[in-house]
């Protein structure tokens, strides 16, 4: 309440109303409610038994209505040629039956398309019991952790060099080189690696021309193509946060440590790495999240049997048509990512406000 009072005092009532309205629509209408709804979806499934029964009944009713319809037509013709009272009465009866039958058909159609919801853990049990899906989930998590570690090992030295060693001009030039590939889309970055790693791609052609290998190597058979492509694709998300936190490290601290006889690794272990903790946490969080949630890179750089968890989620939505199952899988992926975020914040003892600025 005190905050709102402060806002009105500073910006006036009209602008404050707009600020609050827009913020509420964004937070509630675009972030919170959709997420809650997705979680709610994951905890129920349509009653397939009721749906099946409804379809069976629809078929029976349709057949019955068809015979009625045929009889009506027959009797209508009769009433034109030789109209009897008995015929007219029967016609009335049939028309009534047709009308009630049709309204019942409509109701059954509703049940068939929207059968009653059954709440429970069925969607999660399905994931637990499905060997392939569980393995893909584990592989996705492991590969993402692996990509994060490689990116960290590659990026920490680069970030340190940019922040502490390189001159202003060199750093600016290197940054330009780092940033340009990132303005271009992720798809094209993956595609560039595809052309390098393909069976008849640049690397194989070069190696064969120079006589180093006789036959082309299948780089993209397993997960390695994916790991390479992802490490490349997400390096910037690791370099930037670490660079930001190392940039304001006072050089005097490093010099003092060196003067006091610390070896180079001890300078990093005791001074630079502790100082860049928030940056490392941010970099790891972003890289892991991007790697676990990627869709395009495994499709472009993976072999025919390397699938990513996101691809299974997609197929639940658009090939299997089971949104509830898909929502459960999506919530599992989200939980893994949230778990990783909390783990990183705890390990590096950073608050969210410090990690994402």
């Amino acid at each position, binding site marked *: 309440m*005190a*905050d709102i009072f*402060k*806002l009105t005092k*500073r*910006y*006036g*009532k*009209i*602008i404050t109303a707009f*600020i*609050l*309205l*827009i*913020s509420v629509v*964004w*937070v509630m209408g*675009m*972030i*919170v*409610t*959709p997420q809650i*709804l*997705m979680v709610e*979806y994951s905890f129920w499934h349509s009653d397939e038994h009721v749906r099946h029964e409804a379809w069976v009944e629809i078929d029976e009713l349709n057949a019955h209505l068809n015979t009625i319809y045929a009889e009506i037509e027959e009797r209508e013709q009769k009433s034109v040629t030789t109209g009897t009272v008995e015929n007219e009465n029967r016609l009335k009866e049939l028309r009534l039956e047709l009308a009630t039958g049709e309204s019942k058909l409509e109701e059954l159609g509703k049940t068939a398309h929207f059968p009653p919801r059954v709440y429970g853990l069925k969607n999660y049990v399905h994931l637990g019991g499905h060997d392939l899906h569980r393995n893909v989930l584990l592989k996705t998590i492991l590969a993402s952790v692996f990509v994060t570690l490689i990116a960290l090992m590659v990026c920490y030295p680069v970030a340190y060099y940019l922040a502490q060693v390189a001159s202003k001009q060199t750093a600016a030039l290197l940054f330009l080189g780092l*940033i340009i590939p990132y*303005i*271009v*889309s*992720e*798809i*094209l970055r993956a*595609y560039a690696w*595809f052309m390098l790693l*393909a069976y*008849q791609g640049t690397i194989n052609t070069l190696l064969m021309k120079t006589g180093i290998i006789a036959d082309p190597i299948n780089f993209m058979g397993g997960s390695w193509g994916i790991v390479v492509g992802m490490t490349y694709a997400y390096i910037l998300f690791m370099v930037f946060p670490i660079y930001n936190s190392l940039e304001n490290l006072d050089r005097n601290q490093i010099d003092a440590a060196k003067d006091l006889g610390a070896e180079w690794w001890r300078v990093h272990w005791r001074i630079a790495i502790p100082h860049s903790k928030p940056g490392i946490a941010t970099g790891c969080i972003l890289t892991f*999240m*991007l790697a*676990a*949630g*990627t*869709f*395009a890179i495994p*499709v*472009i750089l993976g072999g025919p049997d390397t699938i990513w968890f*996101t691809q299974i989620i*997609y197929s639940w*939505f658009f090939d299997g048509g089971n*949104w509830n199952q*898909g*929502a459960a899988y*999506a919530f599992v992926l*989200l939980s893994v*990512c949230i778990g990783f*975020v909390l783990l990183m914040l705890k390990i590096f003892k950073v*608050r*969210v*406000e410090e990690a*994402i*600025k």
Partner: protein
Amino acid sequence: MPWEGFTMHWFVDFFRDKLLWAAILNTVIIAIGVICLSIPIGLAGAFLLTNMQSRTRSLVYSIMISPILTPGVIIGISTLIFWDNFGVPGGIFLAIIGQTTFIASFCMLLVMARLQRFDKSLEEAAFDLGAGHLQVFWRITIPFLMPSILSATLIAFLLSIDNFNTTLFVIGTETTMTLAIASKVRLGLTPMINAFSVFFIVFTIIAAIVYGIYRQKEAKKALVH
């Protein structure tokens, strides 16, 4: 395939591909929609957070940046499910909504970084001289934030045209440039994609250079003042 010489054939192919042009048009419409929504949302969020002091700030902050930490597919799925309840199917509108959900967070962070450096005495001076709230807002606060609003616009544009994960789930039967390229890449190697990539890369690099020059000019101006 063996190299047989240079040709412009693939560029011609690319310019003739009607489907790709439709995808480019969709991309531009979505990007404009995202910018129009993300900038006001980013501004509102930044104003709200900068003026919050209580403990709820931490919670609101976490929620507002959570879309950045959420995988894009999850944002796409939750948007799709939410709007399905209102009978809205996937398409350009949902793509705008889905992308705005997380792009607004980036815009908010960019605006907030500058808003925190805002000198409050400027506002107070204007009030003392008899300006109204709206006047101060349009004549002082917004002009001060303008560089960050322009940065946010460019970032929103780039994030929007590149987006794959969220768009994939909410685009319905339409397509965008990035999705079209992905499906072409998936189908196999055709030099037309490379021709298109060259076009795309040149375009984005020009945009980046223009932005860089603008930033430098702004920096020089700031030094002079």
